[in-house]
Protein backbone atom coordinates (compact mmCIF):
# COMPACT_ATOMS: atom_id res chain seq x y z
CA UNK A 1 0.00 0.00 0.00
CA UNK A 2 2.93 2.35 0.57
CA UNK A 3 6.23 2.48 -1.24
CA UNK A 4 8.55 1.83 1.67
CA UNK A 5 7.72 -0.60 4.47
CA UNK A 6 7.95 0.98 7.85
CA UNK A 7 7.73 -0.68 11.19
CA UNK A 8 5.23 1.75 12.68
CA UNK A 9 2.50 0.76 10.28
CA UNK A 10 3.36 -2.92 10.69
CA UNK A 11 2.25 -2.75 14.29
CA UNK A 12 -0.81 -0.78 13.37
CA UNK A 13 0.37 2.51 14.80
CA UNK A 14 -0.20 4.36 11.59
CA UNK A 15 -1.13 7.74 12.96
CA UNK A 16 2.57 8.53 12.92
CA UNK A 17 2.67 8.60 9.10
CA UNK A 18 2.41 12.26 8.13
CA UNK A 19 0.59 13.34 4.99
CA UNK A 20 -1.28 16.37 3.75
CA UNK A 21 -5.01 16.04 4.39
CA UNK A 22 -5.94 17.16 0.89
CA UNK A 23 -3.13 17.65 -1.57
CA UNK A 24 -3.80 21.13 -3.02
CA UNK A 25 -1.63 20.43 -6.07
CA UNK A 26 -3.42 17.20 -6.98
CA UNK A 27 -4.63 17.10 -10.62
CA UNK A 28 -8.18 16.40 -9.45
CA UNK A 29 -8.48 19.59 -7.39
CA UNK A 30 -9.02 23.14 -8.54
CA UNK A 31 -10.17 24.29 -11.97
CA UNK A 32 -8.15 21.70 -13.89
CA UNK A 33 -9.64 18.97 -11.75
CA UNK A 34 -13.11 20.32 -12.37
CA UNK A 35 -12.54 20.06 -16.14
CA UNK A 36 -11.00 16.61 -15.77
CA UNK A 37 -13.85 15.27 -13.65
CA UNK A 38 -16.47 16.71 -16.01
CA UNK A 39 -14.68 15.91 -19.25
CA UNK A 40 -17.74 14.40 -20.89
CA UNK A 41 -19.86 17.49 -20.26
CA UNK A 42 -16.97 19.71 -21.34
CA UNK A 43 -16.63 17.60 -24.50
CA UNK A 44 -20.33 18.06 -25.21
CA UNK A 45 -19.93 21.79 -24.70
CA UNK A 46 -16.97 22.00 -27.08
CA UNK A 47 -18.88 20.00 -29.69
CA UNK A 48 -21.85 22.32 -29.30
CA UNK A 49 -19.69 25.45 -29.62
CA UNK A 50 -18.02 24.13 -32.77
CA UNK A 51 -21.37 23.33 -34.34
CA UNK A 52 -22.86 26.64 -33.28
CA UNK A 53 -19.84 28.45 -34.72
CA UNK A 54 -20.34 26.71 -38.07
CA UNK A 55 -24.02 27.71 -38.04
CA UNK A 56 -23.22 31.33 -37.15
CA UNK A 57 -20.79 31.62 -40.03
CA UNK A 58 -22.48 29.59 -42.75
CA UNK A 59 -26.21 29.86 -42.10
CA UNK A 60 -26.57 33.07 -44.06
CA UNK A 61 -27.43 35.11 -40.99
CA UNK A 62 -30.26 32.88 -39.79
CA UNK A 63 -28.48 32.11 -36.52
CA UNK A 64 -27.58 35.77 -36.04
CA UNK A 65 -31.27 36.58 -35.81
CA UNK A 66 -32.79 36.17 -32.32
CA UNK A 67 -36.04 34.97 -33.87
CA UNK A 68 -34.34 31.66 -34.69
CA UNK A 69 -33.61 31.13 -31.01
CA UNK A 70 -37.15 32.02 -29.95
CA UNK A 71 -38.41 29.36 -32.32
CA UNK A 72 -35.87 26.74 -31.21
CA UNK A 73 -36.45 27.45 -27.52
CA UNK A 74 -40.19 26.98 -27.97
CA UNK A 75 -39.93 23.38 -29.12
CA UNK A 76 -36.62 22.34 -27.52
CA UNK A 77 -37.95 22.08 -23.90
CA UNK A 78 -40.09 19.05 -24.78
CA UNK A 79 -36.96 17.11 -25.78
CA UNK A 80 -34.82 18.62 -23.05
CA UNK A 81 -37.07 17.42 -20.21
CA UNK A 82 -36.86 13.83 -21.46
CA UNK A 83 -33.13 13.96 -22.18
CA UNK A 84 -32.05 15.17 -18.74
CA UNK A 85 -34.48 12.88 -16.90
CA UNK A 86 -33.48 9.70 -18.72
CA UNK A 87 -29.86 10.08 -17.53
CA UNK A 88 -30.90 8.35 -14.31
CA UNK A 89 -31.94 5.31 -16.35
CA UNK A 90 -28.84 5.23 -18.57
CA UNK A 91 -26.62 5.63 -15.50
CA UNK A 92 -28.31 2.58 -14.04
CA UNK A 93 -27.08 0.75 -17.13
CA UNK A 94 -30.64 0.43 -18.41
CA UNK A 95 -32.70 2.07 -21.12
CA UNK A 96 -36.27 3.34 -21.05
CA UNK A 97 -38.05 3.37 -24.41
CA UNK A 98 -41.52 4.02 -23.05
CA UNK A 99 -41.19 7.80 -22.82
CA UNK A 100 -42.63 8.44 -26.29
CA UNK A 101 -45.88 6.85 -25.19
CA UNK A 102 -45.86 8.39 -21.71
CA UNK A 103 -45.54 11.74 -23.46
CA UNK A 104 -48.50 10.78 -25.64
CA UNK A 105 -50.51 9.68 -22.62
CA UNK A 106 -49.66 12.86 -20.72
CA UNK A 107 -50.61 14.95 -23.75
CA UNK A 108 -53.88 13.04 -24.11
CA UNK A 109 -54.84 13.35 -20.44
CA UNK A 110 -54.00 17.05 -20.43
CA UNK A 111 -55.76 17.78 -23.74
CA UNK A 112 -58.82 15.73 -22.77
CA UNK A 113 -59.34 17.46 -19.43
CA UNK A 114 -58.57 20.89 -20.90
CA UNK A 115 -60.92 20.33 -23.82
CA UNK A 116 -63.76 19.26 -21.56
CA UNK A 117 -63.31 22.06 -19.08
CA UNK A 118 -62.90 24.93 -21.57
CA UNK A 119 -64.97 23.89 -24.59
CA UNK A 120 -68.52 25.34 -24.45
CA UNK A 121 -69.96 22.15 -25.99
CA UNK A 122 -68.18 19.93 -23.55
CA UNK A 123 -69.30 16.34 -23.41
CA UNK A 124 -68.01 15.25 -20.02
CA UNK A 125 -69.99 17.14 -17.39
CA UNK A 126 -68.04 15.56 -14.53
CA UNK A 127 -64.90 17.46 -15.43
CA UNK A 128 -64.54 20.74 -13.57
CA UNK A 129 -65.31 23.60 -15.94
CA UNK A 130 -63.33 26.80 -16.24
CA UNK A 131 -59.71 27.77 -16.35
CA UNK A 132 -58.80 25.52 -13.45
CA UNK A 133 -59.18 22.66 -15.95
CA UNK A 134 -55.67 22.87 -17.43
CA UNK A 135 -54.15 22.87 -13.94
CA UNK A 136 -56.03 19.69 -13.12
CA UNK A 137 -54.96 18.28 -16.48
CA UNK A 138 -51.33 19.12 -15.72
CA UNK A 139 -51.43 17.24 -12.40
CA UNK A 140 -53.23 14.34 -14.10
CA UNK A 141 -50.58 14.19 -16.85
CA UNK A 142 -47.84 13.94 -14.23
CA UNK A 143 -49.76 11.20 -12.41
CA UNK A 144 -50.16 9.34 -15.72
CA UNK A 145 -46.39 9.55 -16.23
CA UNK A 146 -45.76 8.24 -12.72
CA UNK A 147 -48.10 5.30 -13.39
CA UNK A 148 -46.21 4.38 -16.57
CA UNK A 149 -42.95 4.58 -14.58
CA UNK A 150 -44.40 2.26 -11.94
CA UNK A 151 -45.52 -0.17 -14.65
CA UNK A 152 -41.96 -0.24 -16.03
CA UNK A 153 -40.60 -0.79 -12.52
CA UNK A 154 -43.03 -3.63 -11.93
CA UNK A 155 -42.00 -5.43 -15.10
CA UNK A 156 -38.27 -4.90 -14.62
CA UNK A 157 -37.96 -5.33 -10.87
CA UNK A 158 -40.71 -7.79 -9.99
CA UNK A 159 -40.98 -9.82 -13.18
CA UNK A 160 -37.28 -9.51 -14.03
CA UNK A 161 -37.71 -8.48 -17.67
CA UNK A 162 -34.78 -6.82 -19.44
CA UNK A 163 -35.33 -3.04 -19.33
CA UNK A 164 -35.08 -2.76 -23.12
CA UNK A 165 -37.78 -5.37 -23.71
CA UNK A 166 -40.02 -4.31 -20.83
CA UNK A 167 -40.06 -0.64 -21.78
CA UNK A 168 -40.51 -1.48 -25.47
CA UNK A 169 -43.56 -3.52 -24.54
CA UNK A 170 -44.85 -0.71 -22.35
CA UNK A 171 -44.29 1.72 -25.23
CA UNK A 172 -46.64 -0.29 -27.48
CA UNK A 173 -49.11 -0.98 -24.70
CA UNK A 174 -49.45 2.64 -23.61
CA UNK A 175 -49.59 3.85 -27.22
CA UNK A 176 -52.38 1.39 -27.85
CA UNK A 177 -54.15 2.62 -24.74
CA UNK A 178 -53.85 6.23 -25.93
CA UNK A 179 -55.26 5.31 -29.35
CA UNK A 180 -58.18 3.45 -27.76
CA UNK A 181 -58.93 6.17 -25.22
CA UNK A 182 -58.80 8.92 -27.84
CA UNK A 183 -60.77 6.82 -30.31
CA UNK A 184 -57.88 7.46 -32.72
CA UNK A 185 -59.02 11.06 -33.05
CA UNK A 186 -57.14 14.28 -32.41
CA UNK A 187 -58.21 16.78 -29.77
CA UNK A 188 -57.83 20.44 -30.71
CA UNK A 189 -57.51 22.76 -27.73
CA UNK A 190 -56.98 26.24 -29.25
CA UNK A 191 -59.01 27.82 -26.44
CA UNK A 192 -56.24 27.06 -23.96
CA UNK A 193 -54.55 30.25 -25.10
CA UNK A 194 -55.06 33.06 -22.61
CA UNK A 195 -55.87 30.84 -19.63
CA UNK A 196 -53.87 31.28 -16.44
CA UNK A 197 -52.15 27.95 -16.98
CA UNK A 198 -51.19 28.78 -20.56
CA UNK A 199 -49.72 32.12 -19.58
CA UNK A 200 -47.58 30.45 -16.99
CA UNK A 201 -46.54 27.41 -19.00
CA UNK A 202 -46.20 28.68 -22.52
CA UNK A 203 -46.31 32.46 -22.44
CA UNK A 204 -43.39 34.58 -23.52
CA UNK A 205 -41.14 36.97 -21.67
CA UNK A 206 -40.35 40.04 -23.76
CA UNK A 207 -36.71 41.08 -23.61
CA UNK A 208 -36.01 44.53 -25.04
CA UNK A 209 -32.68 44.96 -26.74
CA UNK A 210 -31.47 48.27 -28.16
CA UNK A 211 -33.25 48.03 -31.48
CA UNK A 212 -35.71 45.17 -31.18
CA UNK A 213 -37.76 43.15 -28.72
CA UNK A 214 -37.14 39.44 -28.58
CA UNK A 215 -39.38 36.97 -26.87
CA UNK A 216 -38.12 34.30 -24.51
CA UNK A 217 -40.53 31.35 -24.32
CA UNK A 218 -41.71 30.35 -20.85
CA UNK A 219 -41.31 26.70 -21.79
CA UNK A 220 -37.58 27.24 -21.69
CA UNK A 221 -37.78 28.68 -18.17
CA UNK A 222 -39.50 25.51 -16.98
CA UNK A 223 -37.04 23.32 -18.85
CA UNK A 224 -34.14 25.19 -17.22
CA UNK A 225 -35.77 24.76 -13.81
CA UNK A 226 -36.29 21.06 -14.43
CA UNK A 227 -32.69 20.73 -15.55
CA UNK A 228 -31.56 22.48 -12.36
CA UNK A 229 -33.59 20.16 -10.15
CA UNK A 230 -32.39 17.10 -12.06
CA UNK A 231 -28.78 18.22 -11.82
CA UNK A 232 -29.15 18.73 -8.06
CA UNK A 233 -30.69 15.29 -7.61
CA UNK A 234 -28.12 13.61 -9.82
CA UNK A 235 -24.96 15.32 -8.61
CA UNK A 236 -25.69 16.41 -5.05
CA UNK A 237 -28.30 14.02 -3.69
CA UNK A 238 -27.96 10.47 -2.42
CA UNK A 239 -30.38 9.24 -5.09
CA UNK A 240 -27.96 10.29 -7.83
CA UNK A 241 -24.96 8.85 -5.99
CA UNK A 242 -26.78 5.57 -5.46
CA UNK A 243 -27.87 5.50 -9.11
CA UNK A 244 -24.24 5.66 -10.21
CA UNK A 245 -23.14 2.99 -7.75
CA UNK A 246 -25.94 0.62 -8.75
CA UNK A 247 -25.09 1.11 -12.42
CA UNK A 248 -21.41 0.60 -11.69
CA UNK A 249 -21.58 -2.56 -9.61
CA UNK A 250 -24.95 -3.86 -8.48
CA UNK A 251 -23.49 -6.57 -6.26
CA UNK A 252 -21.37 -4.05 -4.36
CA UNK A 253 -24.40 -1.81 -3.97
CA UNK A 254 -26.38 -4.73 -2.53
CA UNK A 255 -23.57 -5.64 -0.13
CA UNK A 256 -23.39 -2.08 1.09
CA UNK A 257 -27.13 -1.89 1.70
CA UNK A 258 -28.18 0.48 -1.08
CA UNK A 259 -31.91 0.01 -1.82
CA UNK A 260 -31.40 -1.15 -5.41
CA UNK A 261 -35.05 -1.57 -6.35
CA UNK A 262 -35.94 1.86 -5.02
CA UNK A 263 -33.08 3.43 -6.97
CA UNK A 264 -34.12 1.73 -10.21
CA UNK A 265 -37.82 2.46 -9.74
CA UNK A 266 -36.95 6.10 -9.19
CA UNK A 267 -35.31 6.30 -12.62
CA UNK A 268 -38.41 5.00 -14.41
CA UNK A 269 -40.81 7.14 -12.40
CA UNK A 270 -38.66 10.24 -12.90
CA UNK A 271 -38.65 9.77 -16.68
CA UNK A 272 -42.42 9.27 -16.46
CA UNK A 273 -42.82 12.59 -14.63
CA UNK A 274 -40.68 14.33 -17.26
CA UNK A 275 -42.76 12.76 -20.04
CA UNK A 276 -45.99 13.90 -18.35
CA UNK A 277 -44.73 17.48 -18.14
CA UNK A 278 -43.40 17.27 -21.70
CA UNK A 279 -46.84 16.12 -22.90
CA UNK A 280 -48.38 19.18 -21.29
CA UNK A 281 -45.79 21.46 -22.91
CA UNK A 282 -46.49 19.77 -26.25
CA UNK A 283 -50.19 20.69 -26.10
CA UNK A 284 -49.34 24.17 -24.84
CA UNK A 285 -47.00 24.63 -27.79
CA UNK A 286 -48.94 22.98 -30.64
CA UNK A 287 -52.55 23.30 -29.36
CA UNK A 288 -53.50 19.87 -30.66
CA UNK A 289 -53.28 16.31 -29.43
CA UNK A 290 -52.77 13.59 -32.03
CA UNK A 291 -52.98 9.88 -31.25
CA UNK A 292 -49.34 9.52 -32.31
CA UNK A 293 -48.10 12.47 -30.24
CA UNK A 294 -44.63 11.72 -28.92
CA UNK A 295 -43.60 9.11 -31.44
CA UNK A 296 -41.21 11.50 -33.14
CA UNK A 297 -39.16 11.96 -29.97
CA UNK A 298 -37.64 8.49 -29.69
CA UNK A 299 -34.47 9.09 -31.70
CA UNK A 300 -33.82 12.81 -31.04
CA UNK A 301 -33.86 12.13 -27.30
CA UNK A 302 -31.47 9.19 -27.51
CA UNK A 303 -29.22 11.11 -29.91
CA UNK A 304 -29.07 14.02 -27.48
CA UNK A 305 -28.18 11.65 -24.65
CA UNK A 306 -25.18 10.32 -26.60
CA UNK A 307 -24.12 13.66 -28.10
CA UNK A 308 -24.18 14.89 -24.49
CA UNK A 309 -21.38 12.51 -23.60
CA UNK A 310 -23.41 9.83 -21.86
CA UNK A 311 -22.31 6.26 -22.51
CA UNK A 312 -24.86 3.49 -22.39
CA UNK A 313 -22.81 1.55 -19.87
CA UNK A 314 -23.86 2.08 -16.30
CA UNK A 315 -21.99 3.94 -13.60
CA UNK A 316 -21.38 7.27 -15.25
CA UNK A 317 -23.42 10.01 -16.80
CA UNK A 318 -23.67 13.75 -17.00
CA UNK A 319 -26.88 15.72 -16.69
CA UNK A 320 -25.13 18.92 -17.78
CA UNK A 321 -23.85 17.12 -20.87
CA UNK A 322 -27.34 15.82 -21.63
CA UNK A 323 -28.67 19.37 -21.30
CA UNK A 324 -26.05 20.62 -23.78
CA UNK A 325 -26.65 17.60 -26.04
CA UNK A 326 -30.35 18.41 -26.30
CA UNK A 327 -29.51 21.95 -27.43
CA UNK A 328 -26.99 20.62 -29.98
CA UNK A 329 -29.59 18.28 -31.48
CA UNK A 330 -32.18 21.06 -31.67
CA UNK A 331 -29.63 23.29 -33.37
CA UNK A 332 -28.80 20.53 -35.85
CA UNK A 333 -32.49 20.18 -36.71
CA UNK A 334 -32.90 23.87 -37.46
CA UNK A 335 -29.33 24.37 -38.63
CA UNK A 336 -29.38 21.83 -41.42
CA UNK A 337 -32.28 23.62 -43.03
CA UNK A 338 -30.58 26.97 -42.48
CA UNK A 339 -27.41 25.63 -44.04
CA UNK A 340 -29.40 24.82 -47.14
CA UNK A 341 -29.53 21.04 -46.91
CA UNK A 342 -32.70 19.86 -48.49
CA UNK A 343 -34.80 17.36 -46.60
CA UNK A 344 -33.24 14.31 -48.26
CA UNK A 345 -29.87 15.05 -46.66
CA UNK A 346 -30.90 15.81 -43.09
CA UNK A 347 -30.78 12.26 -41.76
CA UNK A 348 -27.48 11.68 -43.54
CA UNK A 349 -25.86 14.72 -41.93
CA UNK A 350 -27.53 13.85 -38.62
CA UNK A 351 -25.82 10.48 -38.74
CA UNK A 352 -22.44 12.01 -39.54
CA UNK A 353 -22.69 14.44 -36.63
CA UNK A 354 -23.64 11.63 -34.28
CA UNK A 355 -20.75 9.41 -35.37
CA UNK A 356 -18.22 12.26 -35.17
CA UNK A 357 -19.33 13.18 -31.68
CA UNK A 358 -19.23 9.58 -30.46
CA UNK A 359 -15.72 9.17 -31.89
CA UNK A 360 -14.74 12.39 -30.13
CA UNK A 361 -15.84 11.05 -26.73
CA UNK A 362 -14.17 7.73 -27.41
CA UNK A 363 -10.84 9.46 -28.02
CA UNK A 364 -11.26 11.79 -25.06
CA UNK A 365 -11.82 8.85 -22.71
CA UNK A 366 -8.46 7.29 -23.54
Amino acid sequence: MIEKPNTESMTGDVAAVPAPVVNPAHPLTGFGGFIRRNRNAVGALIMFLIFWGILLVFSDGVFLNPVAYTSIFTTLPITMLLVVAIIFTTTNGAIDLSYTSSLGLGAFVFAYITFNSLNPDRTEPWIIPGSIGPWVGFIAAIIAGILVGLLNSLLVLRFRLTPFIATLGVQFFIRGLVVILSDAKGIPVPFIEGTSFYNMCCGRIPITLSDQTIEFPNQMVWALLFFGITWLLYSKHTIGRHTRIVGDNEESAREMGIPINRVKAFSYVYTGIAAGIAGTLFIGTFYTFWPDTGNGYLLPVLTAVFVGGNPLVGGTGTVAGAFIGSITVAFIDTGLIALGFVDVYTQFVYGIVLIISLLGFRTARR
Partner: protein
Amino acid sequence: MTETPLFELRNVSKSFGTIKASKNVSLHVGHREIVGLLGDNGAGKSTLIKIISGVYAPDSGEIWLRGKRVDHWSVAAARNSGIETVFQDRALARQQTIVDNMFMGREITNRLGFIKEKQQIEAAAEMMRSIGFTSALLSPLSQVMWLSGGEQQGIAIARALYFNAEMILLDEPTTALSLHETYKVFGFSRQARDKGSSILFISHNIYHAWDLCDRFIILDRGTVTSQIHKSQMRDAEDLIKTMELVAKTGKAEAAQDYRK
Protein backbone atom coordinates in the same frame (compact mmCIF):
# COMPACT_ATOMS: atom_id res chain seq x y z
CA MET B 1 -20.24 -18.12 28.89
CA THR B 2 -21.44 -15.71 31.52
CA GLU B 3 -21.49 -12.61 29.37
CA THR B 4 -24.21 -12.12 26.73
CA PRO B 5 -22.55 -12.53 23.35
CA LEU B 6 -22.51 -9.59 20.98
CA PHE B 7 -23.87 -11.60 18.11
CA GLU B 8 -25.37 -15.05 17.74
CA LEU B 9 -26.68 -17.31 15.03
CA ARG B 10 -29.00 -20.07 16.25
CA ASN B 11 -29.73 -23.05 14.01
CA VAL B 12 -29.40 -21.04 10.83
CA SER B 13 -29.89 -22.85 7.50
CA LYS B 14 -29.67 -21.59 3.96
CA SER B 15 -30.11 -23.44 0.67
CA PHE B 16 -29.59 -22.40 -2.91
CA GLY B 17 -31.82 -24.66 -4.94
CA THR B 18 -30.86 -28.17 -3.89
CA ILE B 19 -27.52 -27.13 -2.43
CA LYS B 20 -27.55 -26.74 1.34
CA ALA B 21 -24.94 -24.07 1.90
CA SER B 22 -25.52 -23.81 5.66
CA LYS B 23 -27.05 -26.50 7.83
CA ASN B 24 -28.19 -25.67 11.37
CA VAL B 25 -25.31 -23.35 12.08
CA SER B 26 -25.08 -21.95 15.60
CA LEU B 27 -22.24 -19.68 16.50
CA HIS B 28 -21.57 -16.62 18.59
CA VAL B 29 -19.12 -13.75 18.67
CA GLY B 30 -18.34 -12.18 22.02
CA HIS B 31 -17.23 -8.70 22.87
CA ARG B 32 -13.67 -7.69 22.06
CA GLU B 33 -12.56 -10.94 20.53
CA ILE B 34 -11.13 -11.98 17.19
CA VAL B 35 -12.81 -15.14 15.98
CA GLY B 36 -11.51 -17.12 13.05
CA LEU B 37 -14.05 -18.80 10.80
CA LEU B 38 -12.09 -21.54 9.08
CA GLY B 39 -12.91 -24.11 6.48
CA ASP B 40 -12.06 -25.33 3.05
CA ASN B 41 -13.42 -23.88 -0.16
CA GLY B 42 -17.11 -24.62 -0.30
CA ALA B 43 -17.44 -25.06 3.45
CA GLY B 44 -20.02 -22.27 3.53
CA LYS B 45 -17.91 -19.47 4.97
CA SER B 46 -18.99 -16.80 2.53
CA THR B 47 -22.65 -17.82 2.78
CA LEU B 48 -22.49 -17.35 6.56
CA ILE B 49 -20.83 -13.96 6.14
CA LYS B 50 -23.56 -12.86 3.78
CA ILE B 51 -26.22 -14.04 6.24
CA ILE B 52 -24.59 -12.19 9.12
CA SER B 53 -24.12 -9.04 7.06
CA GLY B 54 -27.74 -9.17 5.89
CA VAL B 55 -27.15 -9.80 2.16
CA TYR B 56 -28.85 -13.21 2.29
CA ALA B 57 -31.92 -13.93 4.38
CA PRO B 58 -31.61 -17.31 6.09
CA ASP B 59 -34.27 -19.94 5.28
CA SER B 60 -34.64 -20.79 8.95
CA GLY B 61 -32.98 -20.04 12.26
CA GLU B 62 -32.59 -17.03 14.48
CA ILE B 63 -30.30 -14.04 14.63
CA TRP B 64 -29.58 -12.60 18.06
CA LEU B 65 -27.91 -9.29 18.71
CA ARG B 66 -26.82 -8.21 22.21
CA GLY B 67 -29.12 -10.79 23.77
CA LYS B 68 -32.18 -9.83 21.72
CA ARG B 69 -33.70 -11.68 18.83
CA VAL B 70 -33.75 -9.68 15.58
CA ASP B 71 -36.72 -10.07 13.27
CA HIS B 72 -35.96 -8.02 10.19
CA TRP B 73 -32.35 -8.43 9.25
CA SER B 74 -30.92 -6.60 6.24
CA VAL B 75 -27.67 -4.95 5.22
CA ALA B 76 -28.98 -1.60 6.36
CA ALA B 77 -30.12 -3.08 9.69
CA ALA B 78 -26.74 -4.76 10.18
CA ARG B 79 -24.81 -1.59 9.41
CA ASN B 80 -27.07 0.48 11.63
CA SER B 81 -26.47 -1.99 14.47
CA GLY B 82 -22.72 -1.55 14.14
CA ILE B 83 -21.79 -4.52 11.96
CA GLU B 84 -19.50 -3.68 9.04
CA THR B 85 -18.25 -6.15 6.46
CA VAL B 86 -15.21 -6.35 4.23
CA PHE B 87 -16.48 -8.63 1.49
CA GLN B 88 -14.28 -10.96 -0.47
CA ASP B 89 -15.07 -9.05 -3.67
CA ARG B 90 -14.36 -5.83 -1.70
CA ALA B 91 -17.78 -4.35 -2.63
CA LEU B 92 -16.33 -1.37 -4.44
CA ALA B 93 -17.70 0.59 -7.39
CA ARG B 94 -14.67 0.97 -9.60
CA GLN B 95 -15.70 3.96 -11.69
CA GLN B 96 -16.59 6.00 -8.60
CA THR B 97 -14.27 8.09 -6.48
CA ILE B 98 -12.54 6.91 -3.31
CA VAL B 99 -14.76 9.17 -1.21
CA ASP B 100 -17.96 7.86 -2.82
CA ASN B 101 -16.82 4.30 -2.19
CA MET B 102 -15.99 5.02 1.41
CA PHE B 103 -19.42 6.42 2.14
CA MET B 104 -21.27 4.00 -0.12
CA GLY B 105 -24.70 3.45 1.36
CA ARG B 106 -23.91 5.67 4.37
CA GLU B 107 -23.45 9.10 2.87
CA ILE B 108 -23.19 12.09 5.16
CA THR B 109 -26.26 14.10 4.24
CA ASN B 110 -28.47 16.89 5.45
CA ARG B 111 -32.08 16.19 6.34
CA LEU B 112 -33.22 16.37 2.70
CA GLY B 113 -30.72 13.74 1.58
CA PHE B 114 -28.26 16.12 -0.07
CA ILE B 115 -24.68 15.02 0.37
CA LYS B 116 -22.27 17.07 2.47
CA GLU B 117 -19.46 16.79 -0.04
CA LYS B 118 -16.83 18.80 1.80
CA GLN B 119 -17.25 16.91 5.04
CA GLN B 120 -17.04 13.58 3.23
CA ILE B 121 -13.88 14.54 1.35
CA GLU B 122 -12.15 15.66 4.55
CA ALA B 123 -13.14 12.44 6.30
CA ALA B 124 -11.96 10.39 3.33
CA ALA B 125 -8.60 12.15 3.32
CA GLU B 126 -8.29 11.39 7.03
CA MET B 127 -9.13 7.72 6.40
CA MET B 128 -6.64 7.53 3.56
CA ARG B 129 -3.97 8.89 5.85
CA SER B 130 -4.84 6.36 8.54
CA ILE B 131 -4.28 3.47 6.14
CA GLY B 132 -1.04 4.92 4.84
CA PHE B 133 -2.08 6.33 1.48
CA THR B 134 0.61 8.97 1.53
CA SER B 135 1.18 9.12 -2.21
CA ALA B 136 0.62 12.58 -3.63
CA LEU B 137 -0.87 10.90 -6.70
CA LEU B 138 -3.96 9.85 -4.79
CA SER B 139 -6.78 12.18 -3.91
CA PRO B 140 -10.16 11.33 -2.35
CA LEU B 141 -11.52 12.20 -5.80
CA SER B 142 -9.43 9.56 -7.58
CA GLN B 143 -11.40 6.78 -9.20
CA VAL B 144 -11.00 3.42 -7.45
CA MET B 145 -10.22 1.70 -10.77
CA TRP B 146 -6.75 3.27 -10.78
CA LEU B 147 -5.78 1.78 -7.40
CA SER B 148 -3.77 -1.40 -6.94
CA GLY B 149 -5.37 -4.51 -5.46
CA GLY B 150 -3.84 -3.84 -2.07
CA GLU B 151 -4.97 -0.24 -2.11
CA GLN B 152 -8.50 -1.27 -3.02
CA GLN B 153 -8.47 -3.71 -0.12
CA GLY B 154 -7.25 -0.85 2.07
CA ILE B 155 -10.28 1.23 1.05
CA ALA B 156 -12.63 -1.63 1.87
CA ILE B 157 -11.05 -2.12 5.31
CA ALA B 158 -10.82 1.58 6.10
CA ARG B 159 -14.50 1.87 5.26
CA ALA B 160 -15.38 -0.84 7.76
CA LEU B 161 -13.21 0.74 10.44
CA TYR B 162 -14.44 4.27 9.90
CA PHE B 163 -17.95 3.77 11.22
CA ASN B 164 -16.67 2.50 14.60
CA ALA B 165 -18.29 -0.85 14.09
CA GLU B 166 -18.79 -3.09 17.09
CA MET B 167 -18.28 -6.13 14.93
CA ILE B 168 -16.26 -6.29 11.74
CA LEU B 169 -16.52 -9.21 9.33
CA LEU B 170 -13.40 -9.76 7.27
CA ASP B 171 -14.01 -12.19 4.41
CA GLU B 172 -10.65 -13.42 3.08
CA PRO B 173 -9.07 -10.00 3.52
CA THR B 174 -5.54 -11.24 2.89
CA THR B 175 -6.05 -12.89 -0.50
CA ALA B 176 -3.91 -11.21 -3.16
CA LEU B 177 -2.06 -9.15 -0.58
CA SER B 178 1.69 -8.98 -0.11
CA LEU B 179 3.15 -10.10 3.20
CA HIS B 180 3.64 -6.52 4.26
CA GLU B 181 0.06 -5.63 3.41
CA THR B 182 -1.17 -8.70 5.25
CA TYR B 183 0.63 -7.60 8.41
CA LYS B 184 -0.95 -4.20 8.01
CA VAL B 185 -4.39 -5.77 7.89
CA PHE B 186 -3.53 -7.66 11.09
CA GLY B 187 -2.37 -4.41 12.66
CA PHE B 188 -5.65 -2.72 11.85
CA SER B 189 -7.61 -5.68 13.17
CA ARG B 190 -5.78 -5.70 16.51
CA GLN B 191 -6.12 -1.95 16.73
CA ALA B 192 -9.87 -2.25 16.19
CA ARG B 193 -10.10 -4.99 18.83
CA ASP B 194 -8.16 -2.87 21.31
CA LYS B 195 -10.63 -0.06 20.69
CA GLY B 196 -13.45 -2.44 21.66
CA SER B 197 -14.59 -4.03 18.38
CA SER B 198 -15.01 -7.73 17.74
CA ILE B 199 -13.80 -9.30 14.54
CA LEU B 200 -14.93 -12.34 12.63
CA PHE B 201 -12.03 -13.29 10.41
CA ILE B 202 -12.66 -15.64 7.51
CA SER B 203 -9.73 -17.33 5.89
CA HIS B 204 -8.57 -20.60 4.46
CA ASN B 205 -5.03 -19.69 5.36
CA ILE B 206 -4.68 -21.30 8.80
CA TYR B 207 -1.34 -19.61 9.52
CA HIS B 208 -2.90 -16.20 9.05
CA ALA B 209 -5.81 -17.10 11.26
CA TRP B 210 -3.51 -18.55 13.92
CA ASP B 211 -1.51 -15.32 14.10
CA LEU B 212 -4.56 -13.16 14.58
CA CYS B 213 -7.43 -15.01 16.24
CA ASP B 214 -8.33 -15.82 19.84
CA ARG B 215 -10.82 -18.53 18.96
CA PHE B 216 -11.61 -20.69 15.93
CA ILE B 217 -14.88 -21.90 14.48
CA ILE B 218 -14.39 -24.69 11.99
CA LEU B 219 -16.87 -25.20 9.19
CA ASP B 220 -17.17 -28.26 7.02
CA ARG B 221 -19.75 -28.71 4.28
CA GLY B 222 -22.15 -26.19 5.76
CA THR B 223 -22.01 -27.20 9.41
CA VAL B 224 -19.96 -26.08 12.38
CA THR B 225 -17.84 -29.10 13.25
CA SER B 226 -15.89 -27.66 16.14
CA GLN B 227 -15.10 -24.56 18.12
CA ILE B 228 -11.61 -24.34 19.50
CA HIS B 229 -9.97 -21.84 21.79
CA LYS B 230 -6.44 -20.84 20.96
CA SER B 231 -5.23 -22.00 24.39
CA GLN B 232 -6.32 -25.55 23.51
CA MET B 233 -3.77 -25.69 20.71
CA ARG B 234 -0.01 -25.70 20.77
CA ASP B 235 0.54 -24.02 17.41
CA ALA B 236 -0.83 -23.63 13.92
CA GLU B 237 0.32 -27.16 12.95
CA ASP B 238 -1.71 -28.50 15.82
CA LEU B 239 -4.77 -26.65 14.58
CA ILE B 240 -4.29 -27.94 11.05
CA LYS B 241 -4.03 -31.55 12.28
CA THR B 242 -7.19 -31.10 14.29
CA MET B 243 -9.02 -29.74 11.30
CA GLU B 244 -7.86 -32.64 9.16
CA LEU B 245 -9.10 -35.11 11.75
CA VAL B 246 -12.44 -33.38 12.00
CA ALA B 247 -12.77 -33.42 8.23
CA LYS B 248 -11.89 -37.12 8.07
CA THR B 249 -14.21 -38.33 10.81
CA GLY B 250 -16.85 -35.66 10.35
CA LYS B 251 -17.21 -35.53 14.13
CA ALA B 252 -16.75 -32.59 16.42
CA GLU B 253 -15.48 -34.89 19.18
CA ALA B 254 -12.44 -35.65 17.07
CA ALA B 255 -10.94 -32.40 18.27
CA GLN B 256 -11.13 -33.53 21.87
CA ASP B 257 -10.03 -37.06 20.99
CA TYR B 258 -6.95 -35.71 19.34
CA ARG B 259 -6.00 -33.79 22.47
CA LYS B 260 -6.03 -37.04 24.46
